[in-house]
């Protein structure tokens, strides 16, 4: 795990970036992915009045809820798991919507936007995509680009902020991360 100072640093950095910008891309080395998730979940739990849609294609919801136990108890975070069914995992949790396959991007998009149905205008709303790199394993980069572009347009129209995570090792990720208003690059020991 990273030292607390760095985790706090990321938390502050992301918090400021996402308040000011509609979309933030976070580039992270694969070995720091869990630390980044911990930071984001801390941030979510410390803002219980916000509404979050957390799209996971990297880890199954089952794994996330076991690693970050508090997360599953918070109803302000709705998980959209794109990977469990494709991996043949048939677990079911009330707090999670399972997408049949990570190729079904339209259905994932539909469920993301359904999360915010009925949420009052004054509530801060966020989408986290974890991660674009994982989605690119199952889809061509061009279709992911279209998916993100449409999602951003829909999110903008409803004043929803988007945080997308990208692995540093993903070579095709450059075009995708450039679509964000703000890019935060997380290195092994410092934030850029």
């Amino acid at each position: 795990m990273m030292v607390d100072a760095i985790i706090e640093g990321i938390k502050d950095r992301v918090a400021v970036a996402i308040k000011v910008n509609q979309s933030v891309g976070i580039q992270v080395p694969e070995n720091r992915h869990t630390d980044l998730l911990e930071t984001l979940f801390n941030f979510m739990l410390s803002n219980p009045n916000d509404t979050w849609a957390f799209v996971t294609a990297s880890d199954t919801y089952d794994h996330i809820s076991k690693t970050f136990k508090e997360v599953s108890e918070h109803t302000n975070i709705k998980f959209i798991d794109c990977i469990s069914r494709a991996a043949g995992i048939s677990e079911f949790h009330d707090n999670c919507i399972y997408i049949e396959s990570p190729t079904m991007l339209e259905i994932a998009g539909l469920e993301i936007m359904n999360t915010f149905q009925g949420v009052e205008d004054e509530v801060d709303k966020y989408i986290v995509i974890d991660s674009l790199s994982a989605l690119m394993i199952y889809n061509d980069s061009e279709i992911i680009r279209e998916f993100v572009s449409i999602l951003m347009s829909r999110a903008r129209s409803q004043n929803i902020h988007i945080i997308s995570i990208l692995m540093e090792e993903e070579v095709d990720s450059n075009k995708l991360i450039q679509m964000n208003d703000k890019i935060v690059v997380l290195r092994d020991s410092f934030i850029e």
Partner: protein
Amino acid sequence: MYINTKRDVRSVEEIDMINKEVCSTGIRELDFQMSGGIPLGSTVLVTGCSGSGKTTLCMQYLFNGAQNDDHGVFFTITEPLFKLTKNLEGFSFYDKKLIESGMVNIIDLRIISERLGLDAEKYTVEDAGALLDILKDIADELNVKRLVIDSITALCYRLQSREMIRDFIFKLGTSLAAMNCTTLLTSEVPPQTYKFSQYEIEEFISDGIIFLGDIERRGDLIRTLQVVKMRGIAHSRAKFAMNISAERGLELVPLLKTSDVESLLRR
């Protein structure tokens, strides 16, 4: 001819469309694609392969209508009633009270055939005519505003020759046009084909065609819906991805346009 208002410029045809009375399907995105719904009194072919969502769409249309005081009737010839209602129970739009109160009626045409003393497997022209009369009487009796026949393919299958099928379909078209209701006819087609009907006549008696298909993306099938034709209204012809969920029934979202390279290569 155009009418200039303070706010914008609209053609007379557009204003006519806005004023035209439509029958809302209750499926928000589908209604939006059709400028509010299906024009009242239309006959629409809902076509697709097995498992494409035809019956669910039709049921959602009936139950949504019943919520707004439109009486509806669903004539089935493919599935027994108990199986049909059992499948419906999982959907939030299903309301048993609407069936009990007679707002939604589900009728097995095979039972009617038996009661009429008809051979359930093979119909003559007279049998088919008698069945049409009964169908019309039921619709009139129940003051039905929304009617579904599931499926026209199975109904025609019981007729002996192509000529009989053609005659029956045209008679059906004439009967439906005379009824004061908006009708959905389901039509079975083989999977992965862009064909609207089994006998290639059904589309000619229809005012509209809603095509339920699927696209393959890396081996996964994504359900799609496309309004191919809808007389009398401006409608989208774009292909939409379709989701069927217990909570919300049918939902549509624009299909991503970028084709998957691998899928293209396989075609």
